[in-house]
Protein backbone atom coordinates (compact mmCIF):
# COMPACT_ATOMS: atom_id res chain seq x y z
CA UNK A 1 0.00 0.00 0.00
CA UNK A 2 1.20 3.49 -0.92
CA UNK A 3 -0.08 6.90 0.14
CA UNK A 4 0.53 10.49 -0.87
CA UNK A 5 -0.25 13.72 0.93
CA UNK A 6 -1.67 16.39 -1.40
CA UNK A 7 -0.75 19.80 -0.02
CA UNK A 8 -0.92 23.25 -1.55
CA UNK A 9 0.85 26.56 -1.26
CA UNK A 10 -2.40 28.28 -0.25
CA UNK A 11 -6.15 28.19 -0.16
CA UNK A 12 -8.02 27.68 -3.44
CA UNK A 13 -4.88 26.75 -5.34
CA UNK A 14 -6.36 23.44 -6.43
CA UNK A 15 -5.83 20.70 -3.83
CA UNK A 16 -9.29 19.24 -4.30
CA UNK A 17 -9.02 19.48 -8.07
CA UNK A 18 -5.67 17.68 -7.85
CA UNK A 19 -7.14 14.99 -5.60
CA UNK A 20 -9.95 14.41 -8.10
CA UNK A 21 -7.48 14.26 -10.98
CA UNK A 22 -5.07 11.92 -9.16
CA UNK A 23 -7.77 9.60 -7.79
CA UNK A 24 -9.17 9.28 -11.31
CA UNK A 25 -5.76 8.44 -12.73
CA UNK A 26 -5.14 5.83 -10.03
CA UNK A 27 -8.63 4.35 -10.22
CA UNK A 28 -8.60 4.14 -14.01
CA UNK A 29 -5.25 2.32 -13.79
CA UNK A 30 -7.08 -0.41 -11.92
CA UNK A 31 -5.66 0.48 -8.50
CA UNK A 32 -7.78 0.10 -5.34
CA UNK A 33 -8.00 3.68 -4.13
CA UNK A 34 -8.86 5.38 -0.87
CA UNK A 35 -9.21 8.97 0.30
CA UNK A 36 -8.87 10.70 3.65
CA UNK A 37 -9.07 14.35 4.70
CA UNK A 38 -7.37 14.23 8.11
CA UNK A 39 -8.31 17.77 9.13
CA UNK A 40 -11.38 19.34 7.55
CA UNK A 41 -12.48 22.93 7.82
CA UNK A 42 -15.68 22.96 5.79
CA UNK A 43 -18.08 20.34 7.02
CA UNK A 44 -21.65 19.32 6.43
CA UNK A 45 -24.11 17.37 8.54
CA UNK A 46 -24.83 14.10 6.80
CA UNK A 47 -25.49 10.57 8.05
CA UNK A 48 -26.12 12.19 11.45
CA UNK A 49 -22.45 13.25 11.82
CA UNK A 50 -20.28 16.16 10.74
CA UNK A 51 -18.01 15.31 7.81
CA UNK A 52 -15.70 17.33 5.64
CA UNK A 53 -17.25 18.34 2.32
CA UNK A 54 -14.29 17.02 0.32
CA UNK A 55 -14.56 13.59 1.95
CA UNK A 56 -18.19 13.34 0.87
CA UNK A 57 -17.26 14.70 -2.56
CA UNK A 58 -14.64 11.99 -3.16
CA UNK A 59 -16.82 9.22 -1.75
CA UNK A 60 -19.62 10.12 -4.16
CA UNK A 61 -17.51 10.84 -7.25
CA UNK A 62 -15.42 7.69 -6.99
CA UNK A 63 -18.00 5.49 -5.24
CA UNK A 64 -15.42 4.73 -2.54
CA UNK A 65 -16.28 1.84 -0.24
CA UNK A 66 -15.14 3.38 3.07
CA UNK A 67 -17.53 4.86 5.60
CA UNK A 68 -17.46 8.64 5.99
CA UNK A 69 -16.17 8.87 9.61
CA UNK A 70 -12.66 7.50 8.90
CA UNK A 71 -12.52 9.54 5.68
CA UNK A 72 -12.96 12.70 7.76
CA UNK A 73 -11.66 12.03 11.30
CA UNK A 74 -11.19 15.63 12.52
CA UNK A 75 -13.48 18.53 11.60
CA UNK A 76 -12.59 22.01 12.77
CA UNK A 77 -15.68 24.19 12.80
CA UNK A 78 -15.52 27.98 13.15
CA UNK A 79 -14.61 28.92 16.73
CA UNK A 80 -12.99 25.57 17.49
CA UNK A 81 -9.50 27.01 17.84
CA UNK A 82 -10.54 29.23 20.79
CA UNK A 83 -12.21 26.24 22.42
CA UNK A 84 -9.06 24.17 21.82
CA UNK A 85 -6.76 26.74 23.41
CA UNK A 86 -8.99 27.03 26.47
CA UNK A 87 -9.50 23.28 26.93
CA UNK A 88 -6.44 21.71 25.35
CA UNK A 89 -6.63 18.69 27.68
CA UNK A 90 -9.92 17.61 26.09
CA UNK A 91 -8.37 17.23 22.65
CA UNK A 92 -5.30 15.09 23.21
CA UNK A 93 -6.92 12.34 21.12
CA UNK A 94 -6.88 14.20 17.76
CA UNK A 95 -3.60 12.73 16.49
CA UNK A 96 -4.67 9.23 17.50
CA UNK A 97 -8.01 9.70 15.73
CA UNK A 98 -6.21 10.61 12.51
CA UNK A 99 -3.75 7.72 12.80
CA UNK A 100 -6.54 5.17 13.43
CA UNK A 101 -8.66 6.55 10.58
CA UNK A 102 -5.68 6.39 8.20
CA UNK A 103 -5.09 2.77 9.19
CA UNK A 104 -8.75 1.96 8.46
CA UNK A 105 -8.69 3.66 5.05
CA UNK A 106 -5.44 1.92 4.06
CA UNK A 107 -6.94 -1.57 4.47
CA UNK A 108 -7.22 -3.40 1.12
CA UNK A 109 -5.98 -0.39 -0.88
CA UNK A 110 -3.17 0.03 -3.38
CA UNK A 111 -3.03 3.82 -3.05
CA UNK A 112 -4.52 6.33 -0.62
CA UNK A 113 -4.76 10.05 -1.35
CA UNK A 114 -4.49 12.16 1.81
CA UNK A 115 -5.71 15.70 1.22
CA UNK A 116 -4.37 18.54 3.32
CA UNK A 117 -6.10 21.75 4.24
CA UNK A 118 -4.93 25.26 3.30
CA UNK A 119 -1.19 25.94 3.11
CA UNK A 120 1.53 23.83 4.77
CA UNK A 121 1.17 25.48 8.17
CA UNK A 122 -2.61 25.37 8.50
CA UNK A 123 -3.57 23.38 11.59
CA UNK A 124 -0.44 24.36 13.54
CA UNK A 125 -2.55 25.85 16.30
CA UNK A 126 -3.92 22.34 16.98
CA UNK A 127 -0.51 20.72 16.55
CA UNK A 128 -1.87 19.32 13.30
CA UNK A 129 -0.21 21.29 10.53
CA UNK A 130 -0.15 19.61 7.14
CA UNK A 131 3.56 19.03 7.58
CA UNK A 132 3.07 17.46 11.05
CA UNK A 133 0.29 15.17 9.81
CA UNK A 134 2.30 14.03 6.76
CA UNK A 135 5.25 13.27 9.07
CA UNK A 136 3.04 11.42 11.54
CA UNK A 137 1.58 9.25 8.76
CA UNK A 138 5.04 8.72 7.27
CA UNK A 139 4.05 9.59 3.72
CA UNK A 140 5.55 11.80 0.97
CA UNK A 141 3.90 14.98 -0.23
CA UNK A 142 2.89 16.35 -3.60
CA UNK A 143 2.87 20.14 -3.49
CA UNK A 144 0.28 21.93 -5.62
CA UNK A 145 1.35 25.41 -6.70
CA UNK A 146 -0.56 28.19 -8.39
CA UNK A 147 0.24 28.60 -12.09
CA UNK A 148 2.57 31.56 -12.50
CA UNK A 149 6.24 32.41 -12.20
CA UNK A 150 7.46 34.78 -9.46
CA UNK A 151 5.05 34.51 -6.55
CA UNK A 152 4.22 30.92 -7.45
CA UNK A 153 7.81 29.79 -6.85
CA UNK A 154 8.22 32.04 -3.81
CA UNK A 155 5.15 30.46 -2.16
CA UNK A 156 6.28 27.00 -3.13
CA UNK A 157 9.70 27.41 -1.51
CA UNK A 158 8.12 28.83 1.67
CA UNK A 159 5.68 25.93 1.98
CA UNK A 160 8.26 23.32 1.06
CA UNK A 161 10.48 24.56 3.89
CA UNK A 162 7.96 23.45 6.53
CA UNK A 163 7.69 19.94 5.09
CA UNK A 164 11.49 19.75 4.80
CA UNK A 165 11.84 20.90 8.41
CA UNK A 166 9.65 17.96 9.45
CA UNK A 167 11.71 15.62 7.28
CA UNK A 168 8.81 14.88 4.90
CA UNK A 169 9.84 13.81 1.39
CA UNK A 170 8.56 16.12 -1.37
CA UNK A 171 7.70 13.71 -4.14
CA UNK A 172 7.05 16.38 -6.73
CA UNK A 173 5.20 19.53 -7.69
CA UNK A 174 1.97 20.00 -9.63
CA UNK A 175 1.51 23.47 -11.09
CA UNK A 176 -2.18 24.21 -11.40
CA UNK A 177 -4.32 26.83 -13.19
CA UNK A 178 -1.64 27.88 -15.68
CA UNK A 179 -3.09 30.62 -17.92
CA UNK A 180 -3.36 29.34 -21.46
CA UNK A 181 -1.72 32.39 -23.06
CA UNK A 182 1.38 31.92 -20.88
CA UNK A 183 1.41 28.13 -20.74
CA UNK A 184 4.55 27.46 -22.80
CA UNK A 185 6.54 30.18 -21.04
CA UNK A 186 5.45 29.14 -17.52
CA UNK A 187 6.14 25.50 -18.24
CA UNK A 188 9.60 26.16 -19.59
CA UNK A 189 10.75 28.64 -16.95
CA UNK A 190 9.13 27.08 -13.89
CA UNK A 191 10.08 23.56 -14.88
CA UNK A 192 13.72 24.61 -15.17
CA UNK A 193 13.69 26.49 -11.87
CA UNK A 194 11.96 23.67 -9.99
CA UNK A 195 14.59 21.22 -11.17
CA UNK A 196 17.34 23.71 -10.26
CA UNK A 197 15.88 23.98 -6.73
CA UNK A 198 15.66 20.20 -6.36
CA UNK A 199 11.91 19.74 -6.91
CA UNK A 200 10.51 17.33 -9.46
CA UNK A 201 7.80 18.82 -11.72
CA UNK A 202 5.00 16.28 -12.18
CA UNK A 203 2.71 18.34 -14.37
CA UNK A 204 1.50 21.74 -15.51
CA UNK A 205 -2.29 21.84 -15.65
CA UNK A 206 -3.84 24.65 -17.71
CA UNK A 207 -6.55 26.93 -16.32
CA UNK A 208 -10.06 26.27 -17.61
CA UNK A 209 -12.52 29.13 -16.99
CA UNK A 210 -15.45 26.67 -16.94
CA UNK A 211 -14.12 25.17 -13.69
CA UNK A 212 -14.65 28.51 -11.94
CA UNK A 213 -18.22 29.04 -13.10
CA UNK A 214 -20.89 28.82 -10.41
CA UNK A 215 -24.41 27.52 -10.95
CA UNK A 216 -27.22 30.04 -10.64
CA UNK A 217 -28.33 28.22 -7.50
CA UNK A 218 -24.86 28.60 -5.92
CA UNK A 219 -25.01 32.35 -6.62
CA UNK A 220 -28.46 32.54 -5.10
CA UNK A 221 -27.24 30.83 -1.91
CA UNK A 222 -24.11 32.97 -1.70
CA UNK A 223 -26.09 36.18 -1.99
CA UNK A 224 -28.90 34.94 0.25
CA UNK A 225 -31.48 35.90 -2.37
CA UNK A 226 -35.09 34.78 -2.49
CA UNK A 227 -36.17 32.81 -5.55
CA UNK A 228 -39.23 34.36 -7.19
CA UNK A 229 -39.49 32.14 -10.30
CA UNK A 230 -37.60 29.39 -12.04
CA UNK A 231 -36.41 27.11 -9.21
CA UNK A 232 -36.49 24.27 -11.73
CA UNK A 233 -34.21 26.19 -14.14
CA UNK A 234 -31.38 27.01 -11.74
CA UNK A 235 -28.98 24.35 -13.01
CA UNK A 236 -27.40 26.68 -15.60
CA UNK A 237 -23.80 27.89 -15.20
CA UNK A 238 -23.11 31.61 -14.80
CA UNK A 239 -20.56 32.37 -17.50
CA UNK A 240 -20.39 36.11 -16.88
CA UNK A 241 -21.96 38.84 -14.79
CA UNK A 242 -23.74 41.82 -16.38
CA UNK A 243 -24.57 44.74 -14.10
CA UNK A 244 -27.48 46.64 -15.57
CA UNK A 245 -26.77 50.10 -14.24
CA UNK A 246 -26.77 51.94 -17.57
CA UNK A 247 -29.12 52.84 -20.41
CA UNK A 248 -30.57 49.85 -22.35
CA UNK A 249 -28.67 50.64 -25.56
CA UNK A 250 -25.40 50.40 -23.62
CA UNK A 251 -26.47 47.46 -21.47
CA UNK A 252 -27.39 45.16 -24.36
CA UNK A 253 -23.76 44.97 -25.44
CA UNK A 254 -22.86 43.52 -22.03
CA UNK A 255 -25.05 40.46 -22.47
CA UNK A 256 -23.78 37.13 -23.68
CA UNK A 257 -24.67 33.46 -23.25
CA UNK A 258 -24.86 32.49 -19.58
CA UNK A 259 -25.08 36.08 -18.31
CA UNK A 260 -26.29 36.65 -14.78
CA UNK A 261 -28.04 40.01 -14.88
CA UNK A 262 -27.74 41.99 -11.65
CA UNK A 263 -30.25 44.81 -11.84
CA UNK A 264 -32.02 47.17 -9.43
CA UNK A 265 -35.64 46.01 -9.34
CA UNK A 266 -36.90 49.37 -10.68
CA UNK A 267 -34.81 49.24 -13.88
CA UNK A 268 -37.67 47.70 -15.85
CA UNK A 269 -36.09 48.84 -19.13
CA UNK A 270 -33.05 46.61 -18.59
CA UNK A 271 -35.12 43.71 -17.29
CA UNK A 272 -37.06 43.82 -20.57
CA UNK A 273 -33.79 43.97 -22.55
CA UNK A 274 -32.61 40.79 -20.78
CA UNK A 275 -35.90 39.00 -21.49
CA UNK A 276 -35.76 39.99 -25.17
CA UNK A 277 -32.15 38.88 -25.50
CA UNK A 278 -33.06 35.52 -23.97
CA UNK A 279 -36.20 34.93 -26.03
CA UNK A 280 -34.97 36.17 -29.40
CA UNK A 281 -31.64 34.49 -29.46
CA UNK A 282 -31.92 31.09 -27.77
CA UNK A 283 -31.03 29.22 -30.95
CA UNK A 284 -27.79 31.18 -31.25
CA UNK A 285 -26.72 30.24 -27.70
CA UNK A 286 -27.80 33.40 -25.96
CA UNK A 287 -29.49 32.15 -22.85
CA UNK A 288 -29.66 34.40 -19.79
CA UNK A 289 -28.64 32.29 -16.75
CA UNK A 290 -30.68 34.37 -14.32
CA UNK A 291 -31.89 37.81 -13.28
CA UNK A 292 -30.97 38.96 -9.79
CA UNK A 293 -32.99 41.95 -8.60
CA UNK A 294 -31.36 44.20 -6.03
CA UNK A 295 -32.39 46.74 -3.39
CA UNK A 296 -35.45 44.60 -2.54
CA UNK A 297 -37.35 46.35 -5.34
CA UNK A 298 -39.98 44.06 -6.81
CA UNK A 299 -41.21 45.10 -10.29
CA UNK A 300 -44.87 45.40 -11.22
CA UNK A 301 -46.71 42.03 -11.48
CA UNK A 302 -47.13 42.56 -15.24
CA UNK A 303 -43.31 42.60 -15.61
CA UNK A 304 -42.87 39.66 -13.24
CA UNK A 305 -45.34 37.75 -15.38
CA UNK A 306 -43.16 38.32 -18.45
CA UNK A 307 -40.08 37.02 -16.65
CA UNK A 308 -42.00 33.94 -15.52
CA UNK A 309 -43.11 33.21 -19.09
CA UNK A 310 -39.53 33.52 -20.34
CA UNK A 311 -38.39 30.75 -17.92
CA UNK A 312 -35.44 32.86 -16.75
CA UNK A 313 -34.75 32.20 -13.05
CA UNK A 314 -35.65 35.35 -11.11
CA UNK A 315 -34.22 36.13 -7.68
CA UNK A 316 -34.41 39.13 -5.40
CA UNK A 317 -32.00 40.43 -2.79
CA UNK A 318 -32.50 43.18 -0.23
CA UNK A 319 -28.89 44.31 -0.69
CA UNK A 320 -27.89 47.06 -3.08
CA UNK A 321 -26.34 46.38 -6.48
CA UNK A 322 -22.77 47.03 -5.32
CA UNK A 323 -23.10 44.65 -2.36
CA UNK A 324 -24.64 41.88 -4.46
CA UNK A 325 -22.13 42.27 -7.30
CA UNK A 326 -19.19 42.23 -4.86
CA UNK A 327 -20.38 38.98 -3.32
CA UNK A 328 -20.90 37.33 -6.72
CA UNK A 329 -17.55 38.45 -8.13
CA UNK A 330 -15.64 37.30 -5.03
CA UNK A 331 -17.24 33.84 -5.00
CA UNK A 332 -14.87 30.91 -4.72
CA UNK A 333 -16.42 28.10 -6.69
CA UNK A 334 -15.74 24.67 -5.24
CA UNK A 335 -16.27 21.55 -7.34
CA UNK A 336 -19.26 19.51 -6.21
CA UNK A 337 -19.98 15.84 -6.82
CA UNK A 338 -22.86 16.87 -9.04
CA UNK A 339 -20.69 18.95 -11.38
CA UNK A 340 -20.51 16.11 -13.87
CA UNK A 341 -19.06 18.19 -16.71
CA UNK A 342 -16.49 19.89 -14.49
CA UNK A 343 -15.35 16.54 -13.09
CA UNK A 344 -14.94 15.17 -16.61
CA UNK A 345 -12.90 18.28 -17.52
CA UNK A 346 -10.62 17.86 -14.48
CA UNK A 347 -10.12 14.16 -15.20
CA UNK A 348 -9.21 14.71 -18.82
CA UNK A 349 -6.88 17.64 -17.91
CA UNK A 350 -4.97 15.47 -15.42
CA UNK A 351 -4.80 12.59 -17.86
CA UNK A 352 -3.25 14.86 -20.48
CA UNK A 353 -1.00 17.11 -18.40
CA UNK A 354 0.22 15.02 -15.43
CA UNK A 355 3.13 12.64 -15.86
CA UNK A 356 1.45 9.58 -14.41
CA UNK A 357 4.29 7.26 -15.40
CA UNK A 358 6.79 9.37 -13.48
CA UNK A 359 4.47 9.64 -10.47
CA UNK A 360 3.78 5.91 -10.32
CA UNK A 361 7.50 5.24 -10.75
CA UNK A 362 8.33 7.51 -7.82
CA UNK A 363 5.66 5.85 -5.70
CA UNK A 364 6.84 2.37 -6.67
CA UNK A 365 3.42 1.41 -8.05
Amino acid sequence: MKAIFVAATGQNVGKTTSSIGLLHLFQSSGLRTGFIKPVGQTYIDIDEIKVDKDALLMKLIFDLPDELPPMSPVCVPAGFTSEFLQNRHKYTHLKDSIARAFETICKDKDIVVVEGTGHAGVGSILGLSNATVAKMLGIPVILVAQGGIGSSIDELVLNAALFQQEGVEILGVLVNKVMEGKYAKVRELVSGDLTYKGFDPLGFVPFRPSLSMPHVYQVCRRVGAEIIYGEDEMTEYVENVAIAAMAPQNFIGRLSHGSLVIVPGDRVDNILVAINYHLLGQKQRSKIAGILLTDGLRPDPSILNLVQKSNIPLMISKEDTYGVASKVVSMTVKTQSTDLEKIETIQSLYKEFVDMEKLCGKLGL
Partner: protein
Amino acid sequence: MLLTEEKHDRVAVLCIDGRIDPVTSPAFEAALLGMIQRGERSVVLDFAKVGYISSAGLRVLLIGAKKMKKCQGSICLAALQTSIKDVLAVTGFMNLFRLFKSKESAVLELTANP
Protein backbone atom coordinates in the same frame (compact mmCIF):
# COMPACT_ATOMS: atom_id res chain seq x y z
CA MET B 1 -39.43 2.22 2.70
CA LEU B 2 -42.23 1.73 0.20
CA LEU B 3 -41.65 2.30 -3.53
CA THR B 4 -44.50 2.73 -5.98
CA GLU B 5 -44.19 3.27 -9.71
CA GLU B 6 -46.69 5.23 -11.79
CA LYS B 7 -46.84 5.98 -15.48
CA HIS B 8 -48.35 9.16 -16.94
CA ASP B 9 -48.00 8.86 -20.73
CA ARG B 10 -44.25 9.19 -21.35
CA VAL B 11 -43.46 10.28 -17.81
CA ALA B 12 -42.57 7.65 -15.21
CA VAL B 13 -42.97 8.48 -11.52
CA LEU B 14 -41.28 6.74 -8.61
CA CYS B 15 -43.07 7.56 -5.34
CA ILE B 16 -40.84 7.01 -2.32
CA ASP B 17 -42.32 6.59 1.15
CA GLY B 18 -39.83 6.48 4.05
CA ARG B 19 -36.15 7.08 4.85
CA ILE B 20 -33.46 6.68 2.20
CA ASP B 21 -30.58 5.29 4.25
CA PRO B 22 -27.90 2.60 3.87
CA VAL B 23 -30.52 -0.11 4.53
CA THR B 24 -33.14 1.11 2.03
CA SER B 25 -30.81 2.57 -0.64
CA PRO B 26 -30.24 -0.73 -2.49
CA ALA B 27 -33.99 -1.04 -3.15
CA PHE B 28 -34.15 2.60 -4.24
CA GLU B 29 -31.15 2.05 -6.55
CA ALA B 30 -32.66 -1.09 -8.06
CA ALA B 31 -35.97 0.68 -8.73
CA LEU B 32 -34.43 3.81 -10.26
CA LEU B 33 -31.86 1.99 -12.40
CA GLY B 34 -34.54 -0.52 -13.41
CA MET B 35 -36.68 2.32 -14.78
CA ILE B 36 -33.74 3.75 -16.75
CA GLN B 37 -32.83 0.30 -18.05
CA ARG B 38 -36.42 -0.26 -19.22
CA GLY B 39 -36.07 2.83 -21.38
CA GLU B 40 -37.78 5.48 -19.24
CA ARG B 41 -36.27 8.84 -20.21
CA SER B 42 -38.49 11.24 -18.23
CA VAL B 43 -38.47 10.22 -14.58
CA VAL B 44 -39.99 12.07 -11.63
CA LEU B 45 -38.91 11.10 -8.12
CA ASP B 46 -41.71 11.99 -5.74
CA PHE B 47 -40.09 12.90 -2.40
CA ALA B 48 -43.30 14.03 -0.68
CA LYS B 49 -43.01 11.25 1.91
CA VAL B 50 -39.22 11.26 2.33
CA GLY B 51 -38.02 12.87 5.55
CA TYR B 52 -34.38 11.67 5.55
CA ILE B 53 -31.69 10.98 2.97
CA SER B 54 -28.19 9.69 3.80
CA SER B 55 -25.01 9.77 1.72
CA ALA B 56 -26.00 6.32 0.43
CA GLY B 57 -29.17 7.89 -0.98
CA LEU B 58 -27.18 10.74 -2.55
CA ARG B 59 -24.97 8.13 -4.19
CA VAL B 60 -28.04 6.55 -5.83
CA LEU B 61 -29.23 9.95 -7.08
CA LEU B 62 -25.79 10.65 -8.56
CA ILE B 63 -25.57 7.26 -10.26
CA GLY B 64 -29.09 7.74 -11.65
CA ALA B 65 -28.26 11.23 -12.93
CA LYS B 66 -25.07 10.01 -14.63
CA LYS B 67 -26.85 7.10 -16.32
CA MET B 68 -29.73 9.30 -17.42
CA LYS B 69 -27.33 11.91 -18.81
CA LYS B 70 -25.74 9.26 -21.02
CA CYS B 71 -29.21 8.36 -22.31
CA GLN B 72 -30.10 12.05 -22.81
CA GLY B 73 -33.06 11.74 -20.49
CA SER B 74 -33.93 13.64 -17.35
CA ILE B 75 -34.71 12.99 -13.70
CA CYS B 76 -36.74 15.56 -11.77
CA LEU B 77 -37.30 15.77 -8.04
CA ALA B 78 -40.71 16.74 -6.75
CA ALA B 79 -42.21 17.83 -3.43
CA LEU B 80 -38.96 18.04 -1.44
CA GLN B 81 -39.36 18.59 2.29
CA THR B 82 -37.24 21.36 3.80
CA SER B 83 -34.88 18.94 5.57
CA ILE B 84 -34.16 17.12 2.29
CA LYS B 85 -33.84 20.39 0.41
CA ASP B 86 -31.21 21.53 2.91
CA VAL B 87 -29.12 18.38 2.43
CA LEU B 88 -29.38 18.64 -1.36
CA ALA B 89 -28.48 22.34 -1.25
CA VAL B 90 -25.27 21.97 0.78
CA THR B 91 -24.13 18.96 -1.22
CA GLY B 92 -24.74 20.62 -4.59
CA PHE B 93 -27.49 18.27 -5.68
CA MET B 94 -29.84 21.18 -6.34
CA ASN B 95 -27.63 21.98 -9.34
CA LEU B 96 -28.13 18.57 -10.86
CA PHE B 97 -31.89 18.14 -10.92
CA ARG B 98 -34.87 20.19 -11.95
CA LEU B 99 -37.08 20.68 -8.92
CA PHE B 100 -40.85 20.91 -8.78
CA LYS B 101 -43.21 21.79 -5.97
CA SER B 102 -45.39 18.72 -6.64
CA LYS B 103 -45.46 15.46 -8.55
CA GLU B 104 -48.33 16.85 -10.63
CA SER B 105 -46.45 19.99 -11.74
CA ALA B 106 -43.40 17.89 -12.65
CA VAL B 107 -45.49 15.49 -14.75
CA LEU B 108 -47.22 18.41 -16.45
CA GLU B 109 -43.93 20.11 -17.32
CA LEU B 110 -42.21 16.92 -18.53
CA THR B 111 -45.23 16.02 -20.64
CA ALA B 112 -45.14 19.45 -22.33
CA ASN B 113 -41.33 19.74 -22.49
CA PRO B 114 -39.72 16.30 -22.22
